[in-house]
Structures are given as structure tokens and as C-alpha cells.
């Protein structure tokens, strides 16, 4: 064929001698590029963007910076190095040889896990495709695109698994991943949070803080998988995910800082008078996106989760490092269950509580993010603090869905909830206001009025660096 795959697609999976994968490249890769042109960042495909590209899994290899046009981005396939003699770490197969090929009995389950995870990757690119038109700075614009191309690479990493290990079914699922569309009535993405709109940058930063953080924990749980290729793929993806979380966390923090700053300047004390975003508005966006992201972990009590663990496919967060009992058949987890109008504590078999365990890790992580924001608020000299709502608040999935709770987690009636909706969640008016602030700021080093500059640039460059050649 004469195509140097390794040149076009950096990889460490011996692409040039793998016929299955070559077939994937011939069929799926062009379709992926078509999808990228259709659904990727609108209007920016021909621009030079200062991006990080992974060219190997070595220390320096995964972060190579340089200008690149996005369609030319080298979406690679990387798995962390194979660990000799690796065993299944948990569940009913604990201590058996880790699987290098798909175990027949778990094929369907594994495929479902991979497809569900994979579906989120292109979805967020679709959700964010118009944001380039309203970037608050070149620095942010570049970060957006970095997130986008890496989500694209994550999709490709998951598709590599589908193509490489799941035969015709896997190839069809890979095609479907390019056919579904975020928010499309007829072909929606699988998970609800990925069908929500991302019309403004406050939403983008909340999304990358909270929703991408769900991704971190899902990948972390899959990085423990007894199916070795999945574990190795996810481990490498985790290294990239960290940047996305950084973008979100610092983005929200910069909006908060600027909001406080403008409030101080405004004679009325209201940031909005000077075109800023009130921290109280940020709180409502946090309430919205944090709770949507909580839903992504699935139901608190779940037989699927128990099956995933029992079969050794999906572990707990840092299963091998933090747990001693990897069978988890005896232990129980206390859980607040809402029954007959009140919360009662119930002991749930640990395997059935795996979703909730992972969610708890996530919640702790989110709490530390909020702490950092609050430290920034303190530094800015305000008493305002961001708080995370209860995991019972505003849920659409799991055991609290269908009931109503206030942000502190107390049961309330539907009427009470609706009466307070405007105080707890972004109103149309607030969304419209945030949207009204969104206008592009493409001058190197300059920031939109509603956001503070970052503390430093990317890859040792200054904030003034021309991250995107407009």
C-alpha cells in the first residue's frame, strides 16, 4: 500500500504489520476525518494552532508542542507499556492471567463499556464546536482546541479497541460512534450530559471541570481492567485528561477572580454592572453541571456495576494501590436511601455499590477543586464561597431521581423545588446574560473583560504568545 502509517499515525501498537488495524485505517480513519471536518471546531480547520501531540509514551514523547492545522493533527494510538505477567486484579477472576484478547463470555459487556465511554469523546467535540467564535483569548482558544483534538484521539483510542478486538460488531459500533450527534433528536449521544448544549465559555469551563472529571474516574476504573489492552489504553488517556481538567478548573477560577474584581470596582458592588459574571451565577452553573455529571456514574445500587466488577472488567479507583480485599464479596456500603418520604440508611453489598464508590472518589476530587476556587476568592478579598450541592440534588439518574431535594440534600416537595429553581439553577435570564458577554478576543495577550488572565502560558510560553494564528 505504500503508506507509512507510523508517520501519519504515531503509535506503539505495531500498526504497520497489523492487518486488522490497517483495514480500520482505510475505512474508519477517512470517515473520522469527514466527521471532524463536519462536526469539529467550526471555522478553524485551516488555522495554525499551537498544539501538543503525543508521538510516543516516553516521558518527553507524549507532549510535543508545535503549530499544526487541526485536520493534520496526528491522532496516534498509544498504550502504556505492557506489564509482564500482569494478573486480573479483582473480582471472580482475581489472580488469573490478565486477558490479552476479549474473553468470549464478557464480550458483550466489554463492548458496551467501551462504546459508552467512547461515545462521550466525539460528543464533547460536537458540543463545543462553535465556541471558537467567542473565545475570550487566544490562550483559551488554543486550550479549547487542545481539548478537542485530544477528545478526538481518545475516540480513536477506543475505536482502536473496537476494531482490534471486537470483529465486525466492533467495526459497526465504531461507525455508529460517528453517526450519533450530541443533542440530535434522532441520533442522540448515549449519555444525557453529552446531549446538553455548550453555548458559552462558563459552560465550557464547568463542563471540563465536572464532566471531564467523570471521564477521569471512568478511565481510572477501566485502567484497572483485567482486559489488558483496555487498561493500558486508559492509563495513557489519563495523562492527557489532566490538562482538560486544568483548563476547566483554572477557567472557572479566572471568571470568579474577575467577577470579584469587577464587583469591587462597581459603585453598586455588582459585577454585572461592569460586564462581569457574578460568583453567584457561577455557583448555579456549578450546581447544574456538577449534578449532571454525578448522573454519569450510574445508579447508586447497580447490578451492572456488580457484574462489571465481578467479571474483572471495571475496578475501583486505584484498585490495586488502595484496596486489599479485591473480591469485595463480604463488605457492605452504607447508603442513604429515600423511602416513603424519608432518608434511611441501608447497607448495600459492595459490588452493587461500585458506582457509588467511584462517585464518592469523584466528589472528594471536586471538593478539592472547590477548595482551590475558594482560596482564590479569599485572596480576592471576598466572603463569597462556592459550595458543592448534595449528591441528592437535581438528579436524573439513580435512586434519588424522581424525588426532590434542596442543595443541602434535604427532601423538599416538587412545589418547593420549583419555587427555588431560579435560586439554585441558572435561569434563562442568566444564561442569556452570560451569552451576551461572549464575543471573541483574538489579540495576543488580551483577555475578554469577564475573565482574568491566566497565571502563566502553555509550554513555558508567555500569556502573550500567539497560540493561534488567526
Amino acid at each position, binding site marked *: 500500500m505504500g503508506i507509512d502509517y507510523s508517520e501519519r499515525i504515531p503509535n506503539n501498537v505495531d500498526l504497520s504489520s497489523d492487518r486488522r488495524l490497517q483495514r480500520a485505517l482505510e475505512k474508519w480513519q477517512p470517515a473520522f476525518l469527514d466527521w471532524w471536518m463536519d462536526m469539529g471546531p467550526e471555522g478553524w480547520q485551516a488555522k495554525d494552532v499551537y498544539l501538543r501531540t503525543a508521538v510516543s509514551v516516553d516521558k518527553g514523547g507524549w507532549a510535543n508542542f508545535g503549530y499544526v492545522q487541526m485536520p493534520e493533527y496526528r491522532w496516534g494510538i498509544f498504550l502504556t507499556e505492557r506489564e509482564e505477567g500482569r494478573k486480573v486484579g479483582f473480582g*471472580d477472576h482475581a489472580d488469573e492471567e490478565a486477558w490479552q484478547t476479549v474473553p468470549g463470555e464478557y464480550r458483550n459487556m466489554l463492548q*458496551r463499556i467501551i462504546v459508552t465511554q467512547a461515545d462521550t469523546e466525539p460528543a464533547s467535540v460536537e458540543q463545543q464546536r462553535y465556541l471558537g467564535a467567542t473565545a475570550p483569548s487566544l490562550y483559551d482558544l488554543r486550550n479549547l482546541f487542545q481539548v478537542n483534538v485530544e477528545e478526538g484521539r481518545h475516540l480513536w483510542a477506543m475505536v482502536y479497541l473496537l476494531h482490534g478486538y471486537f470483529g465486525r460488531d466492533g467495526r459497526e459500533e465504531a461507525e455508529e460512534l460517528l453517526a450519533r450527534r450530541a443533542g440530535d433528536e*434522532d441520533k442522540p449521544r448515549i449519555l444525557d450530559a453529552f446531549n446538553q448544549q455548550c453555548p458559552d465559555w462558563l459552560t465550557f469551563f464547568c463542563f471540563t471541570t465536572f464532566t471531564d472529571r467523570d471521564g477521569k474516574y471512568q478511565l481510572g476504573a477501566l485502567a484497572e481492567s483485567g482486559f489488558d489492552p483496555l487498561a493500558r489504553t486508559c492509563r495513557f488517556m489519563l495523562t492527557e485528561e489532566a490538562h482538560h481538567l486544568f483548563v476547566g478548573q483554572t477557567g472557572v477560577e479566572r471568571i470568579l477572580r474577575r467577577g470579584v474584581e469587577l464587583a469591587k470596582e462597581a459603585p453598586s458592588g455588582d459585577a454585572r454592572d461592569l460586564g462581569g459574571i457574578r460568583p453567584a451565577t457561577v455557583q448555579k452553573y456549578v450546581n447544574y453541571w456538577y449534578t449532571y455529571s454525578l448522573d454519569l456514574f450510574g445508579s447508586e445500587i447497580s*447490578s451492572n456495576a456488580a457484574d462489571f*466488577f465481578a467479571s474483572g472488567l471495571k475496578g475501583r479507583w486505584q484498585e490495586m494501590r488502595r484496596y486489599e480485599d479485591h473480591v469485595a464479596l463480604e463488605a457492605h456500603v452504607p447508603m442513604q436511601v429515600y423511602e416513603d418520604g424519608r432518608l434511611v440508611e441501608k447497607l448495600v453489598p459492595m459490588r452493587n455499590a461500585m458506582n457509588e464508590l467511584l462517585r464518592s472518589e469523584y466528589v472528594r476530587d471536586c471538593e478539592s477543586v472547590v477548595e482551590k476556587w475558594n482560596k482564590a476568592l479569599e485572596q480576592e478579598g471576598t466572603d463569597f464561597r462556592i459550595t458543592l450541592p448534595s449528591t441528592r440534588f437535581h438528579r436524573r439518574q439513580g435512586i434519588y431521581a424522581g424525588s426532590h431535594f434542596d442543595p443541602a440534600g434535604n427532601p423538599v416537595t416538587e412545589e418547593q423545588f420549583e419555587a427555588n429553581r431560579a435560586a439554585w439553577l441558572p435561569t434563562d435570564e442568566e444564561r442569556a446574560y452570560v451569552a451576551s458577554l461572549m464575543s471573541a478576543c483574538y489579540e495576543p495577550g488580551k483577555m475578554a473583560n469577564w475573565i482574568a488572565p491566566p497565571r502563566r502560558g502553555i509550554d513555558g510560553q508567555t500569556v502573550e504568545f500567539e497560540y493561534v494564528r488567526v
Partner: protein
Amino acid sequence: MGSEPKITRVESFSTHPDRYRHWKLSFDGPVATLALDIQEGNGLRPDDYELKQNSYDLGVDIELADAVERIRFEHPEVKAVVLTSAQDRIFCAGANIKMLATSTHGFKVNFCRYTNETRCGIEDASTQSGIRFLAALNGTAAGGGYELALTADRIVLVDDGSSAVSLPEVPLLGVLPGTGGLTRLVDKRAIRRDVADLFCTKAEGFRARDARKLNLIDGSFPRSRWEDGVKQEAAQLAATGSDRTGPGIELTPVVAPYTWVSVEHAEDGRLVTLTVRAPDDDPPTTADALRAAGASTWAMAAFRELDDALLHLRFTFDRVGLVLLKTSGDAERVLAHDRALAKLAADGDWLAREMELLRARILRRLDNTAKSLFAIVEPGSCFVGSLFEMTLAADRTYMLEDEDGEVTVQLTEASDGRFPMSTGISRLKARFLNDPEGAAKALEATEPLDAPSAFDLGLVTLAPDDIDWEDELRIAIEERLSLSPDALTGMEQNLRFAGAETCDSKIFGRLSAWQNWIFQRPNAVGDEGALTLYGHPTRPKFDFRRT
């Protein structure tokens, strides 16, 4: 696991749309919509299971059966029924697994039998009454959900990239899709067996595109065109439905104590005497009179009571092994009611025909009851016409040979195919499978037959005289009750259905029998069985030896 199976008490098999908890029945001209909207906490044993994912238990199916009957009798204007769900993205996940896993074996078997009868009733409504069914799967139809869809004349599935049809019982639960799924795949939809094999072992099933290719569904619409598409499909189906001019009659509730049927339990709880009384009035002979009499007309009321009695015997009185079927009253009046109804039906009155179809279904329910049935013909009996079918449904018939020859039975053309068995042939034909002359001879005898004549014609099993009668009966009963109930159920089910199979008879015979075997096996219900462990943190362990 380890805990005793729970008893399910069924207070009543009667309900009314006003009291439905799980179905929403609505009407729009010739199209009725039955939307499944399960109230999770409102199962029959709410402490033991929640009806998640629009899954059903017996309570849900009693409502479904009621709705289908009501459409047949109360809504002659309806020509098509849309079976759909009122919940987002899920049509129905089938029978509730936790309910099955915590039920007694007998309940599981009877639950499946009842749900199968409901589903055959849906098909009966289409083929016999011209009421077409459209399964409009607005979300995933899994297991019993897809099996319900398979009863419809057409199946459409929303094409949203995630909703699928599936039969995950084998791979996920270690049991069968037991409400006709396997049979209807290959027999009704004529899906190739190897394709069906793939489908039945693929837990997640197929989404619209592939499902259409494999003939698992008939069509699909994207979400944006769903409502219009379903509406259009329903209208097209309705156009093929039968004209039935109104008005209908109200299905009044059936409650014990009954008017026409009595059920008498022997002290030991193993023997029941079920007696159907003859009418004590003249039959309605015009369409208007039939409507005025409505559901209280004897032909309908007596059989509905029989139906209710059978259901209570099945679900509540599991220790009863033998049912003595008796009749009493004026045989002439039975014949008069039969004749009047048959005439109205022959003249094209849909209601009369509907009543005959109902009686046929109830007699099939009798065939499918796992109790020994002895018909007892004694002085005062009126086993004539439609009631003579009870003797033909019985495993044995004992007829007293009295000195005066006053104890008689009488066949009419009612036994000549008006009440077909699930095999599609009459009980008389099945009785004389290789002797059509014998059947014809019996039908020719239009006069009342005394015991020797009936015996000679092969219509009764034994005809003891009055000296032997009591002892013969006593011994037969005692002997019957001493035999293994399992072996008897198997034996009776094999002997009752001579002749070729139909889709229906295979569902009650082959499919149910295998399911009931699997329901007893450790691989399903043992401590490490798949059904037992479903939803538990442990995965099943199978004994891999094949039988």
C-alpha cells in the same frame, strides 16, 4: 439466595380501566392506544421487588388481559390497537426478574401460562375479530417486552441509535424467553433458525437497522418522525380491521360467589368439585336482546365465572390435584342458549361471535390447567352442546348408567369446530384423530345419548351402573390423588393435545415445558444459578454437563 420463595396472593382477576395502575388506555376513533406506564412500587409484592424499567408482574398482565377483552366487547369501533410505552426510551424490559427469582415454582409456571394466554388472546383478537395490533416500540423492548411485541401484526421500533429489541434470557438469566418468544421468532415471523440463534444469545439485541434486516421488526422511524409514523402505521392497520357496528356491552366484574358456577373444596384440600349450572331463562334471540342482556347472558356469564374459578384454582389452590367437572340443570335451556347465540353469530352479529370466541378461549384455559380433570355425568347433569366440551376437555369422563336411561349427554354442532383447542382442531377431532368416521358418527347422533350409547360411541371413559358407581368413583379419585402430581401434569399435557402442533400449542407445550424444566434446574434456580444470582454481587456458576 437461600431464602424461601414468596407466596403471591392474587385477590382478584377482575379489574377496570379506572383502576389500572400500569396501563393507560385511550381511544381515538378506530385506534386505541395501550401505553405501558409501570408504577414501580405497585407490584403485587412491593416489599420484594420494584417494577423497574417498565417490567411487569402478574398484576400488570391482568390489566393487559382486561384491556384487550374490553376493547373486544366494549369498543367495537376499534380496529387497531397501538401497544406502546408512556415512559421515555424504554418500551418494556419483560417480566420482572426479581419477582421471578423470589417466586415459588408453581407461581412462575402459572404466571407464564397466564401471560401466554393473554398474548395468544391478542393474536386471537386480530385473527378472529379483526382487531389489528401495532407494537410501537418507542424504546428498548427486551425479553418479555419484545415477546409482547411479537404478538402484534406489525412491529415498529424507534431508530435512535440506542433502542433495541432483544431476548437476553439465555445469556443473562439462564432461562428461556418463555412467553412465546422463541416460537414466534421461527414459526410466526419465519426467521431463519441460525439467525434466531444469534439473536437469542446476543444480550443487547439489535437496533433498528439490523433488526429490520433480520425481520425482527417491520419498520422504524427516527424520533423526530415517530409520532406521525406510528399514527400512519396505525391508520393503515386499522384500514385492514373488521367492521363491527356499535354499541358494545359493558364487561361487568366477575366476583365470587358466582351465579352459575360453584366450587366445592373437599376437606383435604386436594379435590374440588366444579359445577356449572344451566340457564334458567330463555335466551336472547335478537341482536338487541343480546345487547340488553349483555355480559349477564348465561352463555357469557357462566363461562366467565368458569374462567375466574379456573384462575383461582391455578394460583390460589396449588394443592388441588383433581377437579371433578359437573353440570346441573335444564339441558334444553343450554341448547336453546347455544342455538340462539350460534344463529346470531351466523347472521353476522359481531357480539354473538365475540361471545363464542370468548367461550372458546375459556375452554382452552381449561385444557391448559395443570389439574386432573374428571367429568362426572350423573342424574341432573346437563352435559350438552357447549357444556359437552367440558367432558371432551376432561382427562376421563364417568357416566352413570341408570336404569331409566335418564342420564344423558348430547352433542351438537358446537363440538364441530366452534371451540377449537390451541392446536386449531376441535376436541372431538382430537379425540378421534385417526377415526374421522367415529367423530362423524358421534356428531350425527343429535338426540340425547344414554350411557351405553355414549360409551359405544367412545364419548365417555367408563359407564358404571348404579351399583358400582360410588365405589368406582371413590377408587378412581383416591387412586388419582395418590399419583405424582408432576408426572400427572406431564402425562395429561401430552395426552390432551393429539394431532399437529400450531404456534399456540407449541408455546404451551414445547416452550413452556422446557422453560418449566429449566426453572427447576440448579443452573437457573440453585444457590449459584443465573436466575437466583441476577442482580446479586456474585456471578452464576454452571454445571456444564449437558443432558
